[in-house]
């Protein structure tokens, strides 16, 4: 009896420790930055709230069919329709918009595939590939370079992206994504403008003012941001 108990204890300890050992091994092979646990919790909470509201509404609609105007059914619907969905939708929007910053989000649209492929290409000389390869940007690479800072920058980027999606969805898209306006190279200056490496470059003297005024672009001297159409990829 004692042996069996010891055996079971050993199995239990192995079951607990093996994943940890495996995780350590995996961590050695490829380091993954820590997860955003707040986002994970909000995601779980939003899902729980939405699913419980769905269950409550569905049950009320079925169980009180023909008697929905009664007090009890109205109270249940009030909780399911008015109380729970508001925080659930708010959290879902926050989680969804936060997740939409990831490269996987942009890459889920087939039109973006060539851009992401070029960015991840170790032999590519484009600026996006250079930034990705050297981890100049830690994460959310597409979002960081294509969004102005601040709330309105984010909003503009989302609306611009949505209009692209809508035109593709409605069949008005040409199968090629072109920016609605010229790229604002001041976004580059948000990181580069104050760095000592940038400032020490003699060629960069007076460049900031020209970039801000729009008379000079970074790609005038540097390699282009993404691979061009000559390489079979849209610019």
């Amino acid at each position, binding site marked *: 009896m004692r042996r069996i108990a010891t055996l079971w204890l050993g199995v239990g300890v192995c079951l607990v420790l093996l994943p940890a050992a495996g995780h350590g091994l995996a961590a050695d092979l490829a380091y993954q930055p820590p997860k955003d646990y707040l986002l994970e919790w909000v995601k779980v909470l939003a899902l729980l709230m939405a699913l419980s*509201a769905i269950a409550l509404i569905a049950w009320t609609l079925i169980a009180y069919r023909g008697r*929905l105007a009664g007090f009890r059914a109205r109270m249940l619907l009030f909780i*399911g329709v*008015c109380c729970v969905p508001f925080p659930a939708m708010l959290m879902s929007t926050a989680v969804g918009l936060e997740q*939409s910053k990831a490269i996987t989000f942009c890459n889920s649209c087939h039109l973006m595939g060539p851009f992401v492929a070029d960015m991840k290409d170790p032999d590519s000389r484009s600026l996006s590939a250079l930034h990705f390869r050297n981890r100049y940007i830690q994460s959310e690479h597409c979002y960081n370079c294509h969004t102005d800072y601040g709330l309105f920058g984010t909003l503009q980027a989302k609306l611009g992206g*949505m209009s692209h999606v*809508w035109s593709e969805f409605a069949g008005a898209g040409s199968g090629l994504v072109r920016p609605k306006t010229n790229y604002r190279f001041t976004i580059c200056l948000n990181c580069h403008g104050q760095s000592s490496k940038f400032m020490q470059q003699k060629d960069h003297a007076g460049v900031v003012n020209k970039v801000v005024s729009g008379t000079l672009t970074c790609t005038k001297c540097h390699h282009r941001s993404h691979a061009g159409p000559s390489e079979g990829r849209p610019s």
Partner: protein
Amino acid sequence: MKQAAAVHPHDRYLWLSGLLTLFGLSTAVVFTLRSTPYLMVLFLGLGLSCVAAGVAIFAVLLVADVRARLHSVVERRFKAGEAVFQQGDFPDRLYLIGEGEAEVTQEAGGGPVVLRKLGPGDFFGEVGIIGNTPRTATVRAVTDLETLAIHHDHFTALMAYLPSWKERVFDDYRRRTSGEERPGGPPAG
């Protein structure tokens, strides 16, 4: 023959409100689990609108219901020839006649049949409320009619405080539903 239960006119709108919210919440679940541009358009464009529409419909119905409950006893006037309610309507109120005359008619095979005439002091509309069935007859004002309309929730509460009236109403209800008023015919009122 057992009459089908009366369905409140708000019922179908509450159903619609629930369904819209269900759809909106489903898009939220999908969008939370997997963010893609198309799902984003679906959620932000359709999901949020559906939930907003569901809440708006529910809120409008709630306000209407609260208003009806607040105005549980109201005076209602009808012109001669005007219908107080039609056969098949939802039984929302019981009516007490203050002044004027009304007639109770019921649709039969050959057209409407007059069941009886009502005058000051009479009441009508209790059959649907007590039996929770749609109106079994049409009541129309013969002359200009002045009534006191009692909301059906308030009516059941009133019954508890007025036992003698309760007895009278229930006697009348039994008489009408048993077919005494019109031998062989269905209940009226």
